């Protein structure tokens, strides 16, 4: 445990020292991961899958604000769907637009949750998101997580019913459109997941705010159990074919992951080095404000003990 704590301190120190470079690199990696995931799951448009395009988009994301990644991800998804079927792109565009217009006016900061939720779905650990957002966010974050789930299910429904959609004739646009809308509105798995996630976020949020020992851990485990319970209950009621083993294993893995995140991310204040500039009547000030590290990580000291040669010689003689 001590080693981990030391490691965390070193990480913190490292981050505060190189924050200027680490943040863009992280953004770049996130954007790259997102684009690769989108391309591998719905890569219908060859142009967007090209290495150069992916790299340029990711590089752009690395120095633009975080919300730009969400925008790029949405645009790339729409591009792929355009190649796949125009109707699907229309429906996805409407879903994205509604999410954007109605909700993101309120909380532009939470947009990252909308991006991470589908990513976690693809990685088969979607249960991380409601727990994590309950721990670091507010109950309103439930809407972000739910939006992410909607975005994921919308696109995954379209790609899953690709063979069915291909059977429609070209002039059956309306039928195709109706088929997609019906499928989305009748997607019980999506609604059950949304209910489960919203309940989890809210419950985790309220439990972690209780003033009891280990409230964070209790919140995580209760949240995960509630999540599993609602999903299984929904499965029994509506026969949604959730894989029970998948849900349980995914939840266990998620709790462990969130526990790791809690240790390294949520409970640590990665206070940043700030660069500010201001002036008064006499001077211009360019200030670099470096946060003080409260607990210093012990530095390794190597002590070499050398036996004096004289003693060695003496021993040999004896």
């Amino acid at each position, binding site marked *: 445990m001590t080693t981990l704590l030391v490691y965390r301190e070193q990480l913190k120190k490292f981050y505060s020292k190189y924050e200027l470079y680490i943040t863009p690199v992280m953004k770049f990696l996130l954007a790259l991961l997102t684009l690769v995931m989108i391309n591998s799951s719905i890569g219908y448009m060859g142009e967007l899958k090209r290495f150069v395009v992916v790299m340029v988009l990711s590089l752009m994301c690395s120095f633009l604000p975080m919300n730009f990644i969400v925008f790029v991800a949405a645009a790339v998804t729409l591009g792929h769907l355009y190649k796949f079927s125009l109707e699907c792109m229309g429906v996805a565009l*409407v879903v994205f*637009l509604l999410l954007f217009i*109605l909700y993101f006016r309120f909380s532009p900061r939470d947009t990252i949750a909308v991006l991470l939720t589908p990513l976690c779905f693809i990685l088969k650990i979607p249960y991380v998101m409601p727990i994590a957002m309950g721990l670091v966010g507010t109950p309103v974050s439930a809407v972000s997580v739910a939006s992410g789930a909607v975005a994921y299910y919308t696109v995954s429904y379209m790609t899953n019913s690709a063979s069915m959609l291909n059977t429609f004739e070209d002039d059956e646009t*309306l039928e195709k459109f109706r088929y997609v*809308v019906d499928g989305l509105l009748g997607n019980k798995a999506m609604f059950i997941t949304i209910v489960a996630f919203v309940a989890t976020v809210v419950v985790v949020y309220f439990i972690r705010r209780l003033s009891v020992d280990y409230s964070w851990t209790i919140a995580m485990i209760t949240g995960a159990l509630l999540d599993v319970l609602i999903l299984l209950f929904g499965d029994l009621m509506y026969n949604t074919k959730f894989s029970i083993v998948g849900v349980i294993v995914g939840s266990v893995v998620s709790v462990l992951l969130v526990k790791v995140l809690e240790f390294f991310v949520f409970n640590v204040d990665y206070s940043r080095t*700030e660069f500010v500039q201001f002036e*008064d009547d006499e001077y211009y*000030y360019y*200030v670099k*404000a470096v946060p003080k590290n409260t607990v210093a990580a012990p530095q390794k000291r190597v002590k070499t003990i050398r036996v004096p040669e004289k003693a060695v010689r003496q021993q040999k003689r004896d």
Partner: protein
Amino acid sequence: MLNEERIKLMTKMACYEADEGKKNVAIGSYFRGDYIGLQVIKSIISGTIAFVIIFAMYILYDFEVFMADIYKMDLFGFAKTAIVDYLIFIASYAMVSYGVYTYRYTKARRSLKNYYNNLKKLSYLYDKEVKNRDYKEI
């Protein structure tokens, strides 16, 4: 001469201004009613756009039936239900945004209070410095 205390205060304030203060200062420049009113109007506009999109989808979904029935149906009644739906939707959305922005305004004001206190302190430090300088010159 550099005044260390004042520089520390100014740095702290500049950090606040650069980060969360930026938004709060913008909010704080409005009167309460103006800010909330403006945001609610924006919400109503975006809500209207959203409603139009949903309504268009609804019509498009049953487009053939709709076109076939358009001469038979009670258009006035249809418009009435659409308008009532719109009003309910917009009213609830506006109420939610009213709540959210009232909360935000109060929070920003509270956060700015500290900032304004620091401003006062800064001006006090300035005055003191100027007085000291004048005194020395005399």
